[in-house]
């Protein structure tokens, strides 16, 4: 055991806040780092200490391992939690932490390099006898090579960043003439997001579900599965809604997938928390997709269903403690669903919508958890991922959780930036989602279908209320000259307005 006293969190936003909270609950001091865009960010306010890294671009701040290690030295931190994204799956950074005498809260650099690289992990999966989708097990050196592999396995194919995650640098390619643009875009996006332009490609399955297994491995040779998450609701390969458990997984299949995930992790000498992602076809065949060698965005749904605090568990494992429970002791109860709230404009192809949050009214109460990275008055910067918060509901059944989420969404108001809040209401009310008839193409199909029009009557009522409220709100405002003239003469003729006949249909 090597007791950790102070953790530097090499991340930002909601996940940095999440980790600060775990530190405080364990009596461990927390150190935030920040770019110039994040001086006033929530994670800086919550942490015990805070150090500036550099200018706003991630390549000048959150991706600069040298600056992060310098901040660790300066603060006297003895461990680093990388969160997700940024340097969390960078084996060189993990190794550099170790060289600097710091505990990296995650797997060792070698097993990260093996299992975290999408291409090498596919080789390891082959060795462990795990089914995987056809495609390259090597980084594509050139467009020609990409063309060759794609032609061999047949279109459609998927281009992916070897160092990637979170849907970034992923491009579906349906025919050969789309390959060049996709190849260039994927490499460029991968370079920007992960500091490596390496990409590979694999066969695109039709209508698969995305099911992933959360594993936990200690430094004493134990590895267990904490169950699955279903993350099939995606837009542009970016998860939008995740849930635990999956509505369609049988106990037998859950066990088989959990065992396969643990086998892969053990093969790779993996420690700490990790997630093995699979695609599942309609015949219950699962295919290894990739392994995320870090905490996942969607870890809260597993926490709610198992009752285990995963970030605290990560820290305890990194301190050298054995897992505090066996596979059989992991109890699942109830159903949890998470919505990822993004600063993006639903009227503009969900393009990012950074800016100042002028109003933030957040839900709470029974069965609702929010892991939020922003606050009213904060300006969401242009430089990073647009996810600003995660809203999670927990209830005895999936349908109860859906109803709790809808209730919470009704209580949620964000002004100043556009968000995808309305999208969740649409999904959660959708019949296919309710019966869990979802796959990774579900959301794109839903978005392509015409939105259910609000009942005309309901819409008219709200518009009436809006008009009354606006008139009330503007009663002391600065009216235009036309309005001022009208107001001056209004006291002479109030009776007239009241005498007008009621219009039928308008709430009378």
């Amino acid at each position, binding site marked *: 055991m090597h007791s950790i006293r102070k953790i530097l969190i090499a991340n930002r936003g909601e996940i940095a806040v999440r980790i600060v909270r775990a530190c405080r609950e364990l009596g461990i001091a927390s150190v935030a780092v920040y770019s110039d865009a994040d001086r006033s960010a929530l994670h800086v306010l919550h942490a015990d200490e805070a150090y500036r890294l550099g200018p706003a671009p991630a390549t000048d701040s959150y991706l600069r391992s040298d600056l992060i290690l310098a901040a660790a030295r300066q603060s006297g931190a003895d461990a680093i939690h990388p969160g997700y994204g940024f340097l969390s799956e960078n084996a060189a950074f993990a190794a550099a932490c170790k060289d600097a005498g710091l505990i990296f809260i995650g797997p060792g650099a070698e097993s990260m390099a093996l299992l975290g690289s999408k291409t090498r992990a596919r080789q390891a999966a082959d060795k462990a006898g795990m089914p995987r989708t056809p495609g390259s097990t090597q980084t594509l050196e050139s467009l020609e090579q990409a063309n060759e592999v794609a032609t061999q396995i047949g279109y459609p194919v998927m281009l992916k960043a070897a160092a990637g995650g979170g849907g970034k640098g992923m491009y579906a390619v349906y025919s050969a003439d789309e390959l060049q643009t996709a190849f260039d875009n994927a490499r460029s996006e991968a370079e920007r997001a992960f500091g490596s332009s390496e990409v590979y490609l694999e066969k695109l399955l039709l209508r698969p579900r995305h099911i992933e297994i959360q594993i936990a491995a200690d430094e004493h040779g134990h590895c267990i599965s904490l169950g699955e998450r279903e993350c099939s609701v995606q837009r542009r390969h970016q998860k939008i809604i995740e849930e635990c458990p999956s509505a369609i997984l049988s106990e037998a299949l859950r066990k088989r997938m959990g065992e396969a995930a643990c086998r892969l992790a053990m093969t790779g000498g993996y420690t700490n928390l990790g997630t093995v992602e699979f695609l599942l076809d309609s015949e219950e065949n699962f295919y290894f997709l990739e392994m995320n060698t870090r905490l996942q965005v969607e870890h809260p749904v597993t926490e709610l269903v198992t009752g285990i605090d995963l970030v605290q568990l990560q820290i305890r494992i990194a301190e050298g403690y054995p897992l505090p429970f066996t596979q059989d002791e992991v109890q699942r109860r109830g159903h949890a669903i998470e919505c990822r709230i993004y600063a993006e404009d639903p009227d503009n192809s969900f*393009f990012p919508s950074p800016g100042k949050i002028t109003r933030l009214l957040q839900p709470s109460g029974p069965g609702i958890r929010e892991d939020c990275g922003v606050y009213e008055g904060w300006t969401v910067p242009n430089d990073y991922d647009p996810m600003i918060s995660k809203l999670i509901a927990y209830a005895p059944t999936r349908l109860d959780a859906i109803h709790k989420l809808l209730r919470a969404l009704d209580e949620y108001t964000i002004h100043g930036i556009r968000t995808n809040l309305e999208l969740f209401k649409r999904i959660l009310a959708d019949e296919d989602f309710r019966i869990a008839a979802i796959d990774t193409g579900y959301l794109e199909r839903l978005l392509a279908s015409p939105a259910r029009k609000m009942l005309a009557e309901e819409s008219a009522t709200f518009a009436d209320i809006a008009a009354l409220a606006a008139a009330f709100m503007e009663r002391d405002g600065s009216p235009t000259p036309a309005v001022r003239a009208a107001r001056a003469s209004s006291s002479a003729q109030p009776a007239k307005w009241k005498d*007008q006949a009621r219009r039928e249909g308008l709430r009378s």
Partner: protein
Amino acid sequence: MSAGLVKIQLLLGGVLRSVTLTRGEREGSYAGDLDGQAVEFDAVSLMPGVLSLILRSGTGAGQSYQCVFDQADPETGTRRVSIGSHTFAYQVYDPRSLTGRSKRARQDEGTLLLKATMAGRVVRLLVEQGAHVESHAGIVVIEAMKMQNELRAQRAGQVTELRVAEGEMVSAGQVLAVIE
């Protein structure tokens, strides 16, 4: 006797609405007229930009609404109001500014200005100046918050101007290219 409080016209959801309000007898109660329809309600301001409104007449009598207002756009005067999950944009009606806008719109006929839909960085130009493009052809790729967005021509034409270069930061609404 209740005194006149406000008489106002609003452009709300594309429809012109006429509202008059007078104070009611009890504190916080109001009587008014919405497009010729008599209406009574209670209203109280909870904090700046947030009010509670309870209908007191019609079939919806008793319905309670929390209305949350955004700050008005200083340029256009447009303001959003959210009622639960329903959001409406409105402007206080001013005939002169409307005329102005439609005149400007006419000026642009025949010319398409491709504008940035959001602040970000230009990561790639997909055409060269002078190129002829089809409708929906990609012109510029902008990256913001790690997301790339391809801006496309809304109709066919010639790219007569490319006003930005790769790597340049642009702000929302900035003209990126001119297509004629």
